[in-house]
């Protein structure tokens, strides 16, 4: 049981800062694009419901692409400093 828990916890679920920015930009682009295309198509066939359905398809697509923390949003991790174990132990000793 604990092995399963360890496995689930080892799955990374975060996005780095750059990935978050790209996810937001990508979702905006997808939804806007589907909205514009839907508006044009709806105007051509004179059915506003089709515009809304196409926008809904754009929403679903944006949700699939940008909501889950896909690995492509984790390519630029921050360069953290190495943990300084000596310093912390010294501080603890002082206390």
């Amino acid at each position: 049981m604990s092995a399963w828990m360890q496995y689930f916890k080892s799955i990374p679920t975060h996005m780095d800062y750059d990935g978050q920015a790209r996810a937001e930009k990508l979702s905006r682009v997808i939804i806007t694009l589907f909205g514009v295309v839907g508006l044009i198509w709806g105007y051509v066939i004179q059915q506003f419901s089709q515009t809304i359905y196409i926008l809904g398809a754009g929403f679903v697509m944006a949700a699939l692409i940008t909501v889950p923390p896909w690995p492509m949003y984790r390519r630029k991790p921050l360069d953290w400093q190495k943990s300084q174990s000596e310093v912390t132990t010294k501080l603890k000793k002082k206390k």
Partner: protein
Amino acid sequence: MHTVLTRGNAILAYTLSVSACLTFCCFLSTVFIDYRANATLNTVKVIVKNVPDYSASREKNDLGYLTFDLKTDFLHLTPLFNWNVKQLFLYLTAEYQTQNNEFNQVVVWDKIVLRGDNAALDFKNMNTKYYFWDDGKGLRGNKNITLTLSWNIIPNAGLLPSVSALGSHTFAFPSEYTTLRV
């Protein structure tokens, strides 16, 4: 944008904003359209009775009875349905002047035409849907009753225009009351 929920919230909010914007574009694309169209009206049978109106009082008032022909312009009423029109509400109004009132309007008939229905209406000898009551004795011998067809356009978004048809019909009520059943 750091968790699944914030990202979901962000794209949902953005989608709703975009849909509001698209709806406004749809409204803008239809707001300047001239929805007037031709209608041909004619009255077939016109009589007037003097009977008690039990729904208002027991006094005898004038009750007009008429049948009419109605033909809407096929070529012009059909393009009324664009992507911002869900249905038309057509109504037939009788307008006249009496001694009691400077201006009377009575709706005697109406019809809903959904988008996709056949909008080329051609009715012959139609009965009115509603009673044509006058509030006194102003119908007998009235020479100037004008029938007008108007319609409301029920849109997806935007204004609710009320349009009068081009073309009306003026008729006169007979100068004698009818006492027989019709």
